[in-house]
């Protein structure tokens, strides 16, 4: 019989097993902590970046939204006053309407065109990679350069848009000067950047097994039937992802309006974020602007939640059973 290390009484088999188990557990735990430490060290830069540049400012803006603060004056806690004010601000509702118009008319059209482009470049054709690149490159153009370019395209006298209308015998339009046309002009402009979504949809199309199409063809399915019954259902996860991202992005439309129209004519392109920017950095109403930012966050959150909720009905994940 073995003796205990301290020279005490004999070590029973049960006690020995316990001791071994404890040593093993300690060793495993130590190993686990060492691994965790290394993991934390690796992600530390990101954590610090997140805390300092994202979570910190977000929490700060939440606090600021309950204050009245104009940067150079002491802040004063006002509870929910700023939220009450934004609910009563006609200009804010106008900016929200402009944004909603852009989101709900612009995003579906944008997505539809991206899908068409993805289908168009999903064929085996000599030089197809060049076409894909040509479709994608505009989405890499900086937003400011895009805005300046489109200012010229929409120019009433010398712009390409009116030149195209002239070719088919139509009168020129005041694209960015007419309040009725300014928002549609912005939507048309957004088509320039369908390339990003096209690439994602193209990847989705490439992921659909060819055997599905072969089987369908053998069963006599038409091209439309194959698209409707195979392509579209299997592409819905990619469409859903694009939809979520596009709606979030469209709610934050800013650069074009800031550069091209400054919110005009007659506030027809005063989008929510442009109004928020003006409140924050031109009028220095930080409390109000922060409340606006959180209201927008809630709006986007609600829309995203609704989309996820509704997605059960139309998004098909391979391997899932339809309910």
């Amino acid at each position, binding site marked *: 019989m073995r003796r205990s290390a301290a020279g005490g009484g004999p070590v029973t088999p049960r006690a020995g097993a316990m001791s071994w188990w404890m040593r093993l557990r300690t060793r495993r735990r130590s190993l686990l*902590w060492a691994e965790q*430490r290394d993991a934390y060290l690796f992600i530390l830069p990101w954590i610090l970046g997140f805390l300092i540049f994202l979570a910190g400012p977000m929490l700060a803006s939440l606090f600021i939204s309950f204050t009245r603060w*104009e940067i150079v004056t002491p802040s004063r806690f006002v509870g929910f006053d700023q939220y009450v004010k934004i609910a009563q601000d006609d200009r804010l509702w106008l900016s929200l309407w402009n944004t909603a118009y852009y989101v709900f008319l612009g995003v579906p059209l944008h997505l539809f065109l991206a899908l068409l482009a993805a289908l168009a470049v999903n064929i085996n054709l000599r030089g197809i990679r060049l076409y894909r690149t040509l479709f994608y490159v505009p989405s890499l153009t900086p937003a400011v350069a895009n805005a300046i370019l489109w200012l010229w395209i929409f120019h009433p*006298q010398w712009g390409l848009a009116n030149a195209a209308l002239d070719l088919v015998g139509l009168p020129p339009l005041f694209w960015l*000067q007419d309040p009725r046309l300014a928002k549609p002009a912005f939507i048309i402009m957004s088509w320039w950047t369908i390339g990003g979504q096209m690439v994602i949809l193209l990847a989705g199309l490439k992921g659909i097994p060819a055997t599905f199409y072969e089987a369908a063809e053998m069963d006599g399915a038409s091209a439309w039937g194959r698209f409707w019954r195979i392509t579209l259902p299997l592409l819905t996860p990619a469409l859903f992802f694009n939809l979520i991202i596009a709606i979030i992005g469209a709610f934050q439309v800013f650069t074009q309006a800031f550069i091209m129209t400054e919110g005009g004519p007659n506030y027809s392109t005063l989008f929510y974020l442009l109004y928020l920017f003006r409140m924050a950095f031109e009028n220095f109403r930080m409390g109000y602007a922060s409340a606006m930012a959180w209201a927008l966050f809630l709006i986007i959150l609600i829309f995203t939640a609704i989309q996820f909720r509704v997605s059960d009905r139309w998004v098909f994940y391979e391997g899932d059973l339809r309910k």
Partner: protein
Amino acid sequence: MNSQIAGSRHAVNRRAFLKLSAFSLGAASLAACTAVVPATGDGEATMAPVDISFLTQGGGDTSFLRYEPLIETFEAENPHIQIQPIWEPGGAIEIQIKLLTLIAAGDGPDTYWAHSYTNAGQAKRNIQMDLTPFLDSSSIGEDTFLRAAWLDFQIAGKQIGFPRETTSTVLIYNKELIAEAGVSDPADGWTWTDFEAAAMAMTSGEGTERSFGTADWNLNRNTWIKMWQKGGDVLNAERTAYAMNEAVSVAAVNTVKGWHEAGVHVSGVEKGGFSTGDLFTTGRIGMFPQFSVFSNVAPAEFEWDIAHLPKDDSDIETTRVASAGHSMWSGTEHPDEAWTWFQTFASISAFEHWVSTGLNIPSLKAVAGSDNYLSTAVLPPSAQVMLDAFDYGRPEPVAGDWISVHREVQPALDSIYGVEAADTQATLDNIADRVNEFIAFVPSV
């Protein structure tokens, strides 16, 4: 594996790790925010070196040329004071944004470039230092500067800065086109009927070849002059309420709208991306109201001149006067040194230097009236007109957040004069509440 296990005896657990991270972050933040106190040695000179920051326009070589020689001269004469310029491209709005951001960061500039548009709003925020105590023991005063410009930097009895240059709005016109049109010369003193007849006569052609009688009355600052002449104003006399929707002002706006509808006034669309100066110098605009900046029309290869604005017999003789200048920050830690530097902005040598770099109208009387300035090549033959305009000119009724008032009024005017041709009364009524909010805007009160 052994080394890992051995090392793990001193492994930091998750809680300790997060604590350590938070502590390190806090310590780093504290260290970053702690002011660095310069060490003082026994052999230090009596006057400790002081840095005075100076926020000003820095959009190009002209801006640098305006101040760098002054800074060099000043530092040579005052070796214990170093001027640290902060160059910021842009105008009144951009400078104010930079200023407020610096102040919010606890690093406000000791001295800075300022504009009459932003003076009132900054005064409500107590940003400018009241210079009155300094002026009491100085020879600088109201008599040193052009009166209208001096008053632009005076709010509620406090002198909140010195003006640098000032401008008065006059009518700039193409003498050759006027002669061709066969109308009288504006220098003879026009009524608005004369003006409209001349504008009509100078308008001709179609499309991109069209020439226009006039331009720029669509800008709020010029529409306001038309209103002032008729007795209207942006605000009431007490500057406590919006008044642009009153009948007399609406009538003035409708007059300008009529010029647009008649096609004698170039619209923003018809300008096609060109500036008014571009169109004037290429002979496509006959005349327009302009404050005293002539660099944009200097390239013209025809004869041009300036005249007082037209005026009907029943009109009030007036025009717009605006000024830019400099202020001291009320939070400066070195008021005496800042004041030493600030006096440069009232010196003849500084103004003469600025004139040599193309300043508009120097607000220092001694320089504004000098032959040296009036003989500057870029000025029109009748340059005296713009100086005479100060006798009857007036500033904008600046109140509260005045830049926001500008930004509220201009889109409204754009929709009245633009392709939308919005109803004047309804559009001007529509912005009343917001303008009233901006003029009453007192931060955190």
